[in-house]
């Protein structure tokens, strides 16, 4: 076999390997709602005796809103029962209803439902109307799509409300994933991990977290003692910083709480800095699994600390100050203090163990196995 043939064969193998991969990833429409409630006026008429027991079509579609709400944080749907019947377009009111046409335009014979999105400046969602085509028979049921031309309003609503949130069809953008947001809907009748990831990329998800962090005064006390150690024992020079000691402790602790709550560095940083600048949510990404509590690596903590410094300087317009504990020292030792605390040590023991490390006595054992 010549070199050329060998390279050709290797290329084919590489191409086959590449084309057999499954790409994961949702797709978004590039616009989101402002934080807060997304009010949806439910104006679907009728729907008695639905298969899944929903009281009527409004209830079935509202349950689809609730399913999305379970994974949303920054913005959530708020269903309001309105008068059944046609809504109005271009009025900045979100309406969900049946009709035989879309505001005077025919659906086209094979169109089940339509969602429009109105945006201001290209990125700010301001209206979404969802219209279901009365040319089709509707029910609300789970499982495989029925072969009798009766369509499941809840799964169609799940898809349309996904558009209302700002999600696009992943399969129209080169993705190969299982998702209710795919352009061709099959027997899937609920959200998938990809749908949830897409919604949370736009509006954040979250839980309150299952790991208790120490009360604010204790890390503050630790940091004050740390300042003394740096100044008096290490004879550290003062370093410039825009973050005051209390701010450093509070926000490093919050960043750590987000990381322990399964958030990535980027998400944890965003969530934490949003709390500083715009009263962002304090929810974390997920409960921490049983076992060792994960802590972020030092470099990521330092990245956060540098961004915190910039936020204090640029957003909070704080004056430059100085501290005996430089940013790196703050990150390393506050996170280390918290690591001891979350692993069974009380305030005094955790403080002592950190200072033993600073004094060269090595990493100390945590207080529970």
């Amino acid at each position: 076999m010549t070199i050329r043939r060998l390279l050709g064969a290797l290329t084919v193998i590489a191409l086959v390997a590449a084309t057999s991969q499954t790409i994961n990833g949702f797709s978004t429409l590039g616009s989101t709602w402002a934080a807060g409630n997304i009010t949806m006026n439910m104006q679907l008429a009728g729907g008695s005796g639905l298969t899944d027991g929903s009281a009527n079509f409004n209830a079935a579609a509202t349950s689809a809103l609730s399913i999305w709400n379970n994974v949303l944080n920054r913005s959530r749907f708020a269903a309001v029962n309105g008068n059944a019947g046609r809504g109005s377009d271009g009025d900045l009111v979100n309406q969900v209803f049946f009709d035989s046409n879309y505001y005077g335009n025919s659906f086209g014979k094979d169109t089940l439902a339509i969602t429009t999105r109105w945006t201001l400046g290209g990125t700010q969602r301001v209206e979404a109307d969802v219209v279901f085509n009365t040319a089709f028979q509707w029910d609300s049921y789970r499982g495989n799509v029925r072969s009798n031309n009766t369509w499941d309003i809840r799964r169609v609503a799940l898809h349309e409300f996904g558009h209302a949130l700002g999600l696009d069809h992943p399969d129209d953008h080169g993705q190969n994933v299982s998702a209710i947001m795919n352009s061709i809907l099959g027997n899937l009748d609920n959200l998938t991990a990809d749908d949830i990831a897409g919604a949370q990329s736009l509006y954040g998800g979250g839980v309150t977290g299952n790991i208790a962090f120490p009360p604010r005064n204790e890390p503050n006390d630790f940091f004050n003692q740390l300042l003394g150690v740096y100044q008096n024992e290490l004879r550290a020079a003062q370093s410039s910083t825009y973050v005051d000691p209390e701010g450093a402790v509070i926000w490093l602790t919050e960043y750590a709480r987000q990381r322990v709550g399964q958030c990535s560095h980027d998400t944890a940083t965003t969530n934490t800095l949003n709390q500083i600048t715009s009263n962002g949510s304090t929810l974390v990404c997920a409960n921490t699994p049983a076992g060792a509590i994960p802590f972020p690596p030092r470099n990521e903590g330092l990245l956060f600390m540098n961004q915190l410094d910039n936020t204090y300087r640029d957003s909070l317009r704080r004056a430059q100050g100085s501290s005996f504990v430089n940013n790196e020292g703050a990150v390393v030792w506050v996170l280390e203090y918290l690591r001891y605390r979350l692993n069974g040590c009380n305030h005094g023991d955790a403080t002592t163990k950190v200072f033993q490390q600073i004094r060269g006595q090595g990493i100390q054992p945590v207080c529970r196995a």
Partner: protein
Amino acid sequence: MRRLLSLSLICTLLMAGVASSTTVIPPTFETLVSSANTIFVGEAIDVRSEWVATPNGRAIITKVTFKVEDVWKGAAGAVTQLEFLGGTVGEMSMEVVGMPTFHEGQRSVLFVSGEAKSMSPLVGFWHGRMRVEKDPNGVDRVRTYDGRSLGSPAEVGANRPNYMTSVTPMRLSDLETAVRGRVLAGRAR
């Protein structure tokens, strides 16, 4: 009879493992051709959006003007305009998710339905638009509305090719032959 055919189509789709599209039931190639009043190849030469009053408020529409290169079914003038719901005027945008959008210079095969005042003038909403691109040898090739390589008419609609599948797009001339053949077959019935 027409109702029966419609049910038959849906059952066929279901049995093929394609339950539905959330918004649109994907057409087959045969449906695409038979449902179209006009099928033409054209280049978008002008795209402009404007506000319109509707019976229940207001909306934005986009008028796309095409320079028609070839007509495969029905009749179309040398310059033909189609009207799509949605568009951008100033800071305000109205988008119907899935509505085809066009840029000047883009060439397409358009399967235009006969429905008056439809949100999308195309058969199957977006399925009735196929993109035309020249390959490195200057041969016109056909892609689906979302840019997938269309290997054959059988891949229209629900059977569209996987994005990851490397297929040489069919020639525009081959699609023309298939369309004209289907049009003739439809007349013969």
